[in-house]
């Protein structure tokens, strides 16, 4: 039977496919193998070659594949099948309204930017004629014509392109706070209305060129920020990725059937494997289970549920497998809730928030200065009051101030994503710059399992190579760290054999068929069926077939390949590493001494780790916690900054501030360096806008700065600050990698 046939179910198709107005469908797939460019491109070409496929887009950072195709010529299950055949297992994702909204937002911003650019070029040309005309050959009526042309061309710019600023200003006023949009909207509206009035009466200065440049530059900065922010939105993506579309329904005779989660009915019994997301609301039938409900309730500790307790769809099972009796399913539970979660996760975290208060203070001062200038000039020389007040408003507009932080942060986030670090909470970068202690988990974080040849113990007289090759044929189908260690150890033996129908049994092991022989690899009781394993075999990984055990594998631990380099870089940056591990003291000490870490603790329960973290923080340290997933959830949630190795798709990882992709630690050192750089650049931007305003505002207030000069000065200042901010995350030359 086709293993992917369940994807052909109409209920699932409705969830996954996004119909397009041209009759084609679009779907997003999660493909973890996209991290390697060569495989990603090979996959893209293979999919492009399928019938009916129109467009394939790969988003490596988000591990997404977006395909647009004709559903009449190619079915979704055939597409998933093709990905699996390319060794890139793909999982269709529910189509997501927030995703559509993001695309619409980007399209909208791009259109407004382009209209502003086109209008600006036209208005500049007309303005140039007027400036030339003032000295030279253009007669008076022609000049009048060009003023009118300027007005007509500026109308779409103000009415369409600048509309987000007006909408933002109204929004800010309604919420009774002072934001960046208000002075921008005021400046645009005042300059435009004054110039339009002057055009109508046929005399006075017009500033259509200034206002159009002002709007264009601000829109350009906003677009860059928006684009980077959407790219770095890992947390919302994680919520979508974890949405369970399929469920394992258990029949009365004990067999499992894969069905769409939406097709579950009340009373169905569902099998949920360890690490999976609960697909529907229901009642626990197994004795007990620990669940992570963090994204649902915000509670970072795992929750213990006992037989008869209710489980909610969207929570993640931390130990399993368990059986669940469904009470409610369908739109009412899982999908709707996950959609809402994703949207909330996207909105909850934005890096602009911490500078909002500063901006409000700044804006209040600008408005006060403008009013004082106008008042002063009204008393002295009412004719010049308007120009002077306008100049102050434009000069002092805190755009440079407001643009620095978002521009620097977005740039840093993009650079980090390229180094395999996804930042889910932008404010974490601010805290990361102050970190002085790093608390590491050991197994799976600093150390990875490794298989020595001496660790292979054939139990039936095979050669060690033969036993290893058999085990690797099954293990290479799995991404579990132990299975990967086995596959790695077997790689010098030449091309691996290919086991068929490999299946992972959560928490137990793998089973598959090689040349008609059923092989089981995993925990002793699983590999041997229900036969009792001998004492010696209990702590080893066992390979067995129908006749009994074939070999035992004892895995040692070696440091992750980049652990030493990362620790050295962190130490150089003034971060002291320490280890808190749940493992036995001997093994922790061995790894700690290899890596040169003096401060380590072994046999730490999650509560001990949390206590250790509190102790460090009480001593005044700013702590970075690094773990590999759900069992570290408490310390990840309690630390100043948390980083998790994202090898899977669990929601628990989305609790971390930083996600390290591709099983690499070196992103940490890079993130720390970039965080420091961002702090410096933001401070530079603030100093610059302060100096600029102190110099320019007095001139503007006393009427020495005409509004057009104020407009140019403001725009150049903003541009300079943004360009400076774009230096963030630029790779130092010697670190450039091939």
């Amino acid at each position, binding site marked *: 039977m086709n293993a992917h046939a369940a994807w052909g179910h109409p209920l699932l198709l409705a969830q996954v496919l996004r119909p397009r107005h041209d009759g084609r469908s679009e779907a997003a797939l999660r493909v973890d193998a996209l991290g390697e460019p060569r495989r990603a491109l090979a996959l893209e070409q293979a999919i492009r070659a399928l019938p009916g496929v129109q467009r394939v*887009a790969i988003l490596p950072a988000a591990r997404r594949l977006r395909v647009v195709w004709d559903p009449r010529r190619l079915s979704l299950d055939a597409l998933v099948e093709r990905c699996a055949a390319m060794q890139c297992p793909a999982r269709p994702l529910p189509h997501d309204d927030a995703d559509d909204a993001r695309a619409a937002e980007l399209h909208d911003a791009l259109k407004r930017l382009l209209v502003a650019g086109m209008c600006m070029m036209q208005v500049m040309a007309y303005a140039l004629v007027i400036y030339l005309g003032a000295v030279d050959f253009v007669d008076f009526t022609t000049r009048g014509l060009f003023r009118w042309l300027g007005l007509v061309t500026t109308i779409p710019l103000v009415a369409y392109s600048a509309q987000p600023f007006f909408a933002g200003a109204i929004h800010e006023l309604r919420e009774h706070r002072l934001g960046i949009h208000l002075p921008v909207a005021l400046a645009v509206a005042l300059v435009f209305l004054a110039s339009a009035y002057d055009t109508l009466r046929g005399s006075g200065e017009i500033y259509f060129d200034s206002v159009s440049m002002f709007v264009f530059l601000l829109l350009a900065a906003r677009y860059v920020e928006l684009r980077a922010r959407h790219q770095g939105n890992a947390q919302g993506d994680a919520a979508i990725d974890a949405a369970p579309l399929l469920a394992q329904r258990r029949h009365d005779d004990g067999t499992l059937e894969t069905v769409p989660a939406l097709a579950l009915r009340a009373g169905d019994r569902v099998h949920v494997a360890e690490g999976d997301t609960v697909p529907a609301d229901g009642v626990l039938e197994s004795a007990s289970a620990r669940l992570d409900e963090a994204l649902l309730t915000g509670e970072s500790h795992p929750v213990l549920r006992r037989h008869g307790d209710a489980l909610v769809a969207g929570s993640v099972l931390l130990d399993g497998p368990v059986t669940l009796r469904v009470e409610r399913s369908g739109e009412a539970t899982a999908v709707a809730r996950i959609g809402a979660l994703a949207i909330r996760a996207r909105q909850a975290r934005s890096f602009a928030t911490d500078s909002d208060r500063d901006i409000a203070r700044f804006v209040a001062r600008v408005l006060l200065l403008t009013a004082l200038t106008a008042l002063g000039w009204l008393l002295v020389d009412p004719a010049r009051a308007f120009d002077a007040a306008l100049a102050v408003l434009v000069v002092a507009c805190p755009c440079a101030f407001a643009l620095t932080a978002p521009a620097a942060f977005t740039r840093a986030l993009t650079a980090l994503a390229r180094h395999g670090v996804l930042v889910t909470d932008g404010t974490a970068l601010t805290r990361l710059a102050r970190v002085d202690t790093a608390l590491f988990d050991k197994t799976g974080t600093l150390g990875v399992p490794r298989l020595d040849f001496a660790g292979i113990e054939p139990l039936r007289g095979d050669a060690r190579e033969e036993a290893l090759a058999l085990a690797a044929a099954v293990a290479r189908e799995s991404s579990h760290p132990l299975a990967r260690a086995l596959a790695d150890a077997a790689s010098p033996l030449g091309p691996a054999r290919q086991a068929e129908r490999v299946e992972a049994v959560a928490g137990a092991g793998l089973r598959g068929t090689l040349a008609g022989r059923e092989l089981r690899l995993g925990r002793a009781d699983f590999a041997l069926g229900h036969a009792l394993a001998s004492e010696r075999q209990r702590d080893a990984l066992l390979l067995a077939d129908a006749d009994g055990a074939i070999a035992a594998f004892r895995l040692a631990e070696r440091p992750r390949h980049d652990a030493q380099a990362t620790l050295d870089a962190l130490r150089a940056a003034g971060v002291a590493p320490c280890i808190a591990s749940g493992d036995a003291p001997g093994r922790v000490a061995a790894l700690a001494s290899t890596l040169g870490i003096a401060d380590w603790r072994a046999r730490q329960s999650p509560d001990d780790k949390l206590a250790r973290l509190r102790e460090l923080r009480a001593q005044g340290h700013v702590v970075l916690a690094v773990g590999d997933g759900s069992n570290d959830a408490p310390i990840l949630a309690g630390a100043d900054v948390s980083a998790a190795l994202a090898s899977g798709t669990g929601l628990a990882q989305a609790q971390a501030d930083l996600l390290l992709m591709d099983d690499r630690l070196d992103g940490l050192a890079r993130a720390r360096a970039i965080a420091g750089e961002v702090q410096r650049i933001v401070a530079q931007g603030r100093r610059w806008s302060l100096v600029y305003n102190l110099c320019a505002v007095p001139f503007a207030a006393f009427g020495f700065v005409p509004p057009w000069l104020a407009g140019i000065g403001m725009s150049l200042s903003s541009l300079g600050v943004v360009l400076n901010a774009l230096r963030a995350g630029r790779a130092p030359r010697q670190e450039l990698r091939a």
Partner: protein
Amino acid sequence: MNILLVLIPVTALVVIAGVALFFWAVNHQQFDDLDTPGILPLLDEPASDATPAPAEDTTGKP
């Protein structure tokens, strides 16, 4: 300077046509993925139906 009366509407039309073309391109998602097309020419082999050699997949780690 009467030529201006012709040229100005012409430039206005060009701008409007440009904006219309660009709106079409944005609506058809031409600007959504700016990274992949840049890598496509670097591929050295044409699309083929053969799956990649198994050895490349799980063992080719750095």
